[in-house]
C-alpha cells in the first residue's frame, strides 16, 4: 500500500512536470506567433531593451572584469608549470568567448532580469492590472510578454559581448600586473586562436538564453496567484527555472554547434 502511494506521488509529480513544460512551451510558441502579428509594440521593446540591456551592463561588465582576473590567475598557476605563460591570453579568451562569457552572462541576467519580469508581471496579475489592460482592449499577453521576450533576445548577445570584452580586459590587467605584458601583445595572443565562428556561434546561442529567461519568467508572472506570497514565489521560481533551462540548453546548443561546425570544437 505504501509502495503504491509512493508510485502515485512520483507519477503525479512527473505528470505535473510534463504539464508545466507543456504550458511553458505553449506560452513560448504563442509569443513567437504573436510577435509576428501587428501591432508591434516597438516602444515597449525599446523601453525593456533599455531596462534589461543598459541597466544590466554595469553588473555584466563588473562580473566579466572580475572573472577575467580570476581566470587569468588560475590559468597562470596551471600553465606556469609547463612554461607556457605565453598561452595565458589565448586560453583565457577561448574560455571566455566560447563558454564562460555566454553562460555567466545568461545566469546573471536570469538572476537580475528574470526575477524582475516574474515579480513585475506577477504583481500586475494579483493587483488586477492585467485585467485592467484587457478591459482597456489591450492584449495583455502581447503588451507585456512579447516585448520583454524580444528585448531580452536582443539584449543577451550584446551583454555577452560586453562580458567577453571586459573579461579579456580583466585578464590583461591581471597579466600585466604579474608579467608586464604589453596590451597589444596580450590582445594579439588572445585572439590568435579565436575564429569568427567561435565568437558568432557562442554569442548567438545567448539569443536562446534570452528567449528562455523571458518566456519562463513571463509565464510564471502571468500564472501568479495567492497575492504577495505568490509574487515572491514567481520571482524566485523565475530565477531557478531560467537558470536550469540555460544550463540544460547550453549543453544541447554546444552539442548542436559541434555537430554542424566541427571546427569550433578544435
Amino acid at each position: 500500500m505504501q509502495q503504491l502511494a509512493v508510485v502515485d506521488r512520483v507519477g503525479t509529480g512527473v505528470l505535473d512536470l510534463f504539464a508545466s513544460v507543456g504550458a511553458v512551451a505553449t506560452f513560448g510558441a504563442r509569443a513567437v506567433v504573436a510577435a509576428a502579428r501587428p501591432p508591434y509594440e516597438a516602444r515597449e521593446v525599446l523601453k525593456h531593451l533599455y531596462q534589461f540591456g543598459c541597466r544590466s551592463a554595469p553588473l555584466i561588465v563588473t562580473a566579466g572584469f572580475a572573472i577575467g582576473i580570476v581566470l587569468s590567475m588560475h590559468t597562470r598557476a596551471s600553465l606556469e608549470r609547463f612554461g607556457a605563460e605565453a598561452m595565458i591570453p589565448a586560453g583565457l579568451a577561448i574560455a571566455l568567448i566560447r563558454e564562460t562569457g555566454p553562460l555567466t552572462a545568461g545566469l546573471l541576467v536570469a538572476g537580475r532580469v528574470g526575477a524582475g519580469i516574474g515579480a513585475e508581471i506577477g504583481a500586475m496579475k494579483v493587483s488586477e492590472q492585467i485585467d485592467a489592460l484587457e478591459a482597456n482592449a489591450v492584449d495583455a499577453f502581447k503588451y507585456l510578454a512579447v516585448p520583454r521576450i524580444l528585448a531580452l533576445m536582443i539584449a543577451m548577445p550584446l551583454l555577452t559581448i560586453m562580458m567577453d570584452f571586459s573579461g579579456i580586459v580583466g585578464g590583461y590587467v591581471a597579466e600585466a600586473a604579474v608579467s608586464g605584458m604589453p596590451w597589444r601583445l596580450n590582445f594579439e595572443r588572445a585572439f590568435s586562436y579565436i575564429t569568427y565562428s567561435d565568437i558568432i556561434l557562442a554569442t548567438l546561442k545567448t539569443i536562446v538564453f534570452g528567449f528562455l529567461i523571458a518566456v519562463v519568467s513571463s509565464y510564471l508572472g502571468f500564472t501568479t496567484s495567492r497575492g504577495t506570497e505568490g509574487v515572491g514565489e514567481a520571482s524566485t521560481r523565475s530565477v531557478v527555472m531560467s537558470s536550469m533551462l540555460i544550463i540544460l540548453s547550453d549543453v544541447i546548443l554546444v552539442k548542436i554547434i559541434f555537430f554542424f561546425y566541427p571546427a569550433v570544437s578544435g
Partner: protein
Amino acid sequence: MNAVRFDHVSKAFGALKVLDDISFEIPTGQAFCLLGRSGTGKSVTLRHIVGLVQPDRGNVLVEERDIAALAGRELADVRKRMGFLFQNGALFDSMSVGDNVAFPMRRHTDWSDAEIRERATRKLADVGLDHDYDTMPSDLSGGMKKRAALARAMALDPAILLVDEPSAGLDPITAGEIDDLLVKTKQGGTTLVVVTHNIPSARVIGDAFAVLQEGRMLARGTLATLDASEEPLVQAFMHAQGGG
C-alpha cells in the same frame, strides 16, 4: 436596444457556484445598480460583461453581441466602447496618474500628445485630481486612486460604464461628487452598471436595481418596486443608510 443582456447565466469557480441562472437586461442609457452582500457575485457579473470571465452556461450580450463568442479585434472593438472601474482601482503602478488616464487614448486614438494630455487633464479635473497628472499611483490615497481609476474608465467617453463600488473608501462629500458625475455621465447617454453597497448613492444614480443573494437574483425592478418588496434582505438593503 439593450446595452447589456444576461440570458440564464451560470458561473462556478470549482465547487463554488457564483452565479446561478441569472437573467436581466439593461436598456441603453439606463443606470442599473447591482446590490447585494459581499461575495454574492456582483463583481463577477461585471467581469462577465467586459469578457474577463466566460459563463459556464447562458449568454452575455453586449449591444446584442455575445461577448463570450468574440475574440481578438472583435472583442477589442466591443471593449473599446466600455469603461471599467475596478473595485481596487487597478491603476498601472508604473505610470503616472495622468498617463493612466491617457493610456486608453494613446492606444485607441490618433490624437496628438498635446491633445491627449489636455483631454486627460480634463478627465482628471472631473474627479478633482487635475493637479495630480504627474503623481504616481503609490503616492495617492485609496480614495484618490479610485477617482483616478474612474477618470481612466471614462477616458474614451464609453457607451457603457461598468463601476465596481464607486464610493468605497471615499468621504461623503467626494462620494456625492462622484454620484453627481455618474448621473451627468448617464445624462450624456452612457449606460451605467454600478455595483454598490451604498444605498443612498444607488438611489441617486440608479434607474433600475437588482439584489443578488448567493448567486441568484433575489429582486429586480425600479426603486419603488424594491422599496415595496417584502423580502427581508431587500428591505434591509433598501432601508440601509450608508455603506460602501
